[in-house]
């Protein structure tokens, strides 16, 4: 059993809002530099940069997992994290099939760039990735889980695109393993304001769109091996596994 410093909420150049410096190779280099050892990219509604992420990880010796940040029909963002690229891509195809066929206007939304692990541009995703897909939140979570994902309600305390902003409270029985809390909010205060979150495991990740934000918030996982199955045990606090969200408020920033 050992501790892993994890950040599963990182946007590459495939996300229209991702900075042009956010290539998988650059993110991986920065992750290694700041001592993260378990990292996943999570672009909006697409896993198309996860093969590059695998290549970039191999070059750095950092353990990679493979994610997407899916936006449901209610415009709730959900982080889904997979053990393997193939599983992320298969789930990504299910997501893409339900993504409205609206072209990305790069002028106002930004470019959606598919790259390889060496920062070569392979192509541009033409369809706008930040639309809500046609499936509701319940279906997104259940289907992600069927595909083998760790499922996390993204930035749950945020005023837009979160479970709380769109639905008011966490619906009972939703197939999620944890909720993610932003740097602005304290866990205890959050549960006091939103009793539906009582007992729900909480994690903190960076939601980085810029290199400087990578690993800004992290979660420390104590697990036997860095797999989705073990991470689920850690979030549930079972069998000696644990998950510790590390808060860094904005004022801590150096």
């Amino acid at each position, binding site marked *: 059993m050992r501790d892993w410093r994890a950040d599963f909420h990182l946007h590459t150049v495939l996300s229209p809002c991702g900075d042009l410096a956010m290539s998988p190779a650059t993110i991986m280099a920065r992750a290694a530099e700041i001592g993260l050892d378990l990292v996943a990219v999570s672009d909006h509604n697409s896993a198309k940069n996860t093969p590059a992420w695998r290549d970039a990880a191999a070059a750095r010796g950092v353990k990679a997992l493979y994610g997407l940040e899916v936006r449901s029909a209610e415009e709730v963002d959900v982080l889904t994290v997979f053990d393997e690229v193939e599983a992320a891509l298969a789930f990504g195809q299910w997501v893409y099939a339900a993504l*409205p066929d609206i072209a990305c*206007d790069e002028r*106002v*939304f930004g470019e959606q760039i598919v790259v390889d692990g060496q920062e070569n541009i392979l192509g541009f995703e033409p369809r706008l990735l*930040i*639309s*809500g897909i046609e499936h509701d939140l319940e279906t997104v979570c259940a289907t992600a889980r069927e595909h083998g994902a760790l499922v996390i309600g993204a930035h749950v305390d945020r005023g*837009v695109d979160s479970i709380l902003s769109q639905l008011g409270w966490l619906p009972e029985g939703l197939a999620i393993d944890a909720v993610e809390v932003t740097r602005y909010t304290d866990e205890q205060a959050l549960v006091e304001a939103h009793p539906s979150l009582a007992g729900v495991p909480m994690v903190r990740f960076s939601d980085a769109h810029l290199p400087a934000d990578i690993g800004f918030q992290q979660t420390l996982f104590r697990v036997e091996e860095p797999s989705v199955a073990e991470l689920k045990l850690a979030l549930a606090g079972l069998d000696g596994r644990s998950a510790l969200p590390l808060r860094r408020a904005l004022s801590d920033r150096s």
Partner: protein
Amino acid sequence: MTVSEMAQALGLKAVTAVGEQQIQGAMAADLISDVLANGAPGQVWLTIQTHRNVAAVASTQDLAAVVITGGREPNNDLIALANHESVTILLSNEDTYAVAGRLYALGVR
């Protein structure tokens, strides 16, 4: 009716430049994807959303103006993009229901 006539009639506060574009109807929506799918050129969009994507969607759909209701304040990213894309952003202290009713009474259908 033009956008500036509407702003005057409803006492809206402008945070970006107000044009003389003719209004071609209106919609009330708080889901960005709803406006992406159903927003039509020349419409006024009533919403409580205040993030940057409001200006982006207003631009892609060629809307006449956005009215942010309920006394909410737009964030700086939204204002910056709206200025850049010449999107008219107006603010109302009334809620969406009240603004929609007044627009309807003014003949915006």
